[in-house]
């Protein structure tokens, strides 16, 4: 089976803090891969390095056999990215943003126009197509970001928290789109904090904590006989707190 994304010994340090500590990860083509981990575990840093948005201090990332940092142009052509907390050209309308991004990717005008219309309609952004991105809500920004990631029909989608702030109806739409994408042979890597969603959606999962991958594989293997949420708490060595202290609260 070919690998859609492969991370080898990926390493990143910010000052004295080691954010990503030699991460190895293998995402098979045709898989729906979930990346989970506590806050500040290094998920976003790893994904940024995997798609060419943050230069690693060590290690390699390859997308369908193309080294991301040796040949970024070919790697980026194969990939659709939704970074977390991204900056968008705020003073373009949603439709204009998609149009220009498509043209910059070298797509022809008619294809861009047709896909822009379809994506905006499917993601229920057609009412907002002529509004400036600066006036979009958090959920709408996620959706327009997802649309730019899908526009050029990539082989691999790397999505950082794609469901955050998105309403339930749109979330269901996005889930369906992503499942169709995987069925058609594409690969999706997404990070999320919602275990139930990962459990239901993903074929594979990796747990990352303190910059290291501590468990990875098919979802059924990683969770064993329990729910993914219980397995997660067990794997990251935590225990759910909140029952001690705070006696002054609501007294």
């Amino acid at each position, binding site marked *: 089976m070919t690998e859609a994304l492969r991370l080898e010994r990926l390493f990143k340090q910010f000052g004295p803090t080691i954010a990503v500590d030699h991460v190895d990860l293998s995402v098979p083509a045709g898989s729906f891969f979930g990346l989970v981990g506590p806050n500040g575990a290094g998920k976003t840093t790893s994904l940024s390095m995997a798609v*060419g948005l*943050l230069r690693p201090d060590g290690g390699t990332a390859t997308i369908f056999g193309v080294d991301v940092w040796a040949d970024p142009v070919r790697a*980026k052509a194969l990939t659709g*990215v939704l970074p977390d907390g*991204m900056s968008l*050209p705020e003073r373009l309308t949603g439709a204009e943003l998609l149009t*220009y991004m498509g043209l*910059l990717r070298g797509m022809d005008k008619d294809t861009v126009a047709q896909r822009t219309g379809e994506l905006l309609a499917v993601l229920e952004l057609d009412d907002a197509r002529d509004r*400036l991105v600066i006036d979009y809500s958090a959920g709408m920004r996620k959706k327009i970001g997802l649309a730019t990631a899908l526009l050029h029909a990539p082989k691999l989608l790397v999505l950082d928290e794609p469901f955050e702030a998105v309403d339930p109806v749109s979330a269901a739409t996005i889930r369906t789109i992503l499942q169709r994408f995987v069925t058609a042979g594409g690969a999706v890597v997404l990070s999320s904090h919602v275990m139930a969603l990962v459990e239901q959606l993903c074929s594979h999962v990796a747990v990352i904590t303190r910059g290291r991958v501590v468990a990875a594989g098919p979802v059924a293997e990683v969770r064993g006989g329990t729910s993914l949420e219980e397995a997660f708490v067990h794997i990251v060595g935590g225990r759910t707190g909140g029952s001690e202290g705070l006696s002054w609260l609501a007294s």
Partner: protein
Amino acid sequence: MVGILIRMKLRVLRHSLRGTQAGLTGAGALVGLCAAVVTILVATMDFGRPGVGVDVLAAVYLLWTVGWLFGPVFTGGGDETLRPEHFAALPITPRRLAGGLLGAAFAGVPAIVTFLAFTGLVVLADGAAATVVALVVLPLQLVFVVLLSRVVMAGLGAVLRSRRGRDLGVLLAALVGLSGFAIQAALNTVGPLLVEGGSPALSTVLRVLPSGWGVVAVGAAADGQWPLVLGCVAALLLVVAGLLALWGVLLERRTTRVAVSIGPRRGRTRSGIGHRLPPTRIGAVAGKELRTWARDARRRVALLSMLIVGVVVGVVPAITGGDTGPLPFAGLVVVTMACLLAGNLYGMDGSALWHTLVVPGAEAVDVRGRQLAWLLIVGPVTLVLALVLPGVTDPGLYPWVVGLAPALLGGGAGLIMVLSVYLAYPMPDQRASPFAAGGNPGLVRGLMQLAIALLLGVVALPEIAILALGSGTPAVQWLALPVGIGVGVLCWWGLGGLAQRRLAGKGPELLAQVRKQV
């Protein structure tokens, strides 16, 4: 790709140019146009001496180049209409992106105005051959200034993202503030020298700098010195290619590295006056404010500008004029500047205002705490300057300076809160370049800010009246001190109260105003 980026930029500009913003751009275009016309007129002038025309035009083009270097620093970190980050995920090499962004850089008022100014090269050209050379070097010279400006801003941007770099940026802002005076002095002395052709060294410098190469090439073509023409053109081409490659590298760095987060400096968090404040509500606000003044790069820029303007206004005339001039009053200048620069405290904090709005009754203490912090910063500086400077210059001025200082301090502490609450305007994200400090109050708001700050003069009126009436009798003049203290306390209390009531009544409206994205 250049075409797409240009269309994209024009579209963004069309969406953002509305109302006063469009007016300001129009006014800027008009000023630029005048400068371009003056430049062309300079090119047509006959100085009656061979070579002087080339020298003068080279000097003018040096000014244009300097303008491209420092203009972005003043206007807030350069042209960020199209940000490289937006294209980071696209399969485009950094060098192609640099080329594309360079093309887009020409779609804008500054580049067009500069192009017009550079047509002076064609005007200067004497004969058909020189005209052809002028038409060749004109675009090269334009590409050179635009690229130079982009590369320098990109380089600074890379430096400014680290904390140490931010301190460097503050220093740089200070130097830029001073450079205005340097340019003025240079013009006064250099101008006549140049026209009379009296300094071969100066004319050599102007011709050797890249800003003069185009002019030199055109002049040399008229004289038939073809090797020199070819040398200049080749050198321009080389520099442009080098800058483009360098910009590509800087763009790649910008899109693939992140800033290390800005935290408190280790070991310095537990010291300082912020920790000696009483653990009360007002003490908490003041402590938070003092720390923010120290840690927010934009506030540091404001503080430093205040000191520099105080020094420049007070000391520079004293040095250049030989007269002590306004030097004894430097302390008062510092208060006035500090009042003007702190007139948008809520705008600087942005949407963080919600913290104040959700705590019951916090509006009142917030105003008083911010006043206290401002006084703790500005007060000592002012008092030291007010007590020392008249002593070393003219002790007869003591009643004036010492009488006015408390009034201005109190008035300033009141006015900053009135300005901050009534005339707040949103500012760029805190994580942006500290040079993006200006924000844009808009024309009306800006003028009103200035007008209200001038009320500081009203605060000074009673004291000035006493000082003028009692001139000659120090005993009467010293009455200005108690009056000044009284007026100061009254302003601090009364204007602060006005701000408190407004903040309590219109808090949500203020939040909506300052949280806007700019």
